[in-house]
């Protein structure tokens, strides 16, 4: 029975490249989510007016 072969590991450069592209995607996703939050907030104000805050709590 042969031992399971170890998967070929990444070189230092490839690992850095991977980290960099992951960081880029994370930042892009954060920007999209932030923008979405702002859009929903602004839409609420636009569609319901500032009156949305005038209600009994």
């Amino acid at each position, binding site marked *: 029975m042969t031992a399971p072969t170890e998967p070929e590991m990444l070189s230092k450069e*490839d690992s850095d490249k*991977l980290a960099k*592209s992951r960081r880029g*995607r994370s930042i892009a996703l954060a920007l999209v989510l932030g923008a979405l939050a702002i*859009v929903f907030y602004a*839409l609420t104000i636009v*569609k319901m007016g500032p009156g949305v805050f005038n209600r009994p709590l």
Partner: protein
Amino acid sequence: MALVDDNLTAAGVAMEGEVSDYLALLKPRVMSLVVFTAAAGLLVAPGPIHPFVAAIAILCIAVGAGASGALNMWYDADIDAIMSRTRNRPIPSGRLDRQTALMFGLVLSVFSVALLGLAANWFAAGLLAFTIFFYAVIYTMWLKRATPQNIVIGGAAGAFPPMVGWAAVTGNISLDSVVLFLIIFLWTPPHFWALALYKQSDYAAAGIPMMPNVAGERSTRNQILVYAILLSLASLLPLATGLTGWVYAVPAIGLGLVFSGLAFKLWRAPAEQMKRNARELFTFSLLYLFALFLALVADVGIARFLEMIS
């Protein structure tokens, strides 16, 4: 060794993709035309719309169009790998895997439709959902590989955006918005067949039944001419419905004459000049649509301004 590190094999690296690969899935150049025609439909539609809601509506239509682009690339990865024009797309070049593109397209479809419904109205949202369905399923999965009329029917998907923009304002479909649809619908076949005439070896290699490969160059050129004339006539319909006046009429007539003229030149071109004339028509067709919709917006805008100050 931590479990996540198991993914760090050489094969996994290629498949994660950069931000730019995800943007490429949205077909940004197609998107720019969609944004422009959707904005035109929204601007000429009668009735008030809050500028912020208008901006969000156009964003939603753009993202919806991008989502159908991603779904198209998910499904068409096999033929994209064969054609030189599409070989460098993210999936055939190995920068993203198909599953990622599918999920990306589905998530964006749901978000764009839902946001359009919340911001504008659910009729427009339904129309956007239908547009995505039409492009991704009816065109990409079914007609593109099945019939040389693929472009004609698939072109309907590209003709919906101004109707969606219009519906975002009015909440319905009207004769005027159908006219805008008809103009882009008739524009698409001569636009794409001109491209296919000088790229036909590509499509033949991928096994896609484009008109020049199936019906021959002669028949394609005949059909381009017919569509060009129909388009030139249809472009005058906004005058008949009363949507526009002379500010639109003058450029529309001029643009129609040039379009038909180039189509006629292509129709009678000798074989050795055919590709050059086809490229000429293709390039002009982009300018044509841009200028025509610009004239439309300018006409309606000027009319509204004059009405306001009188």
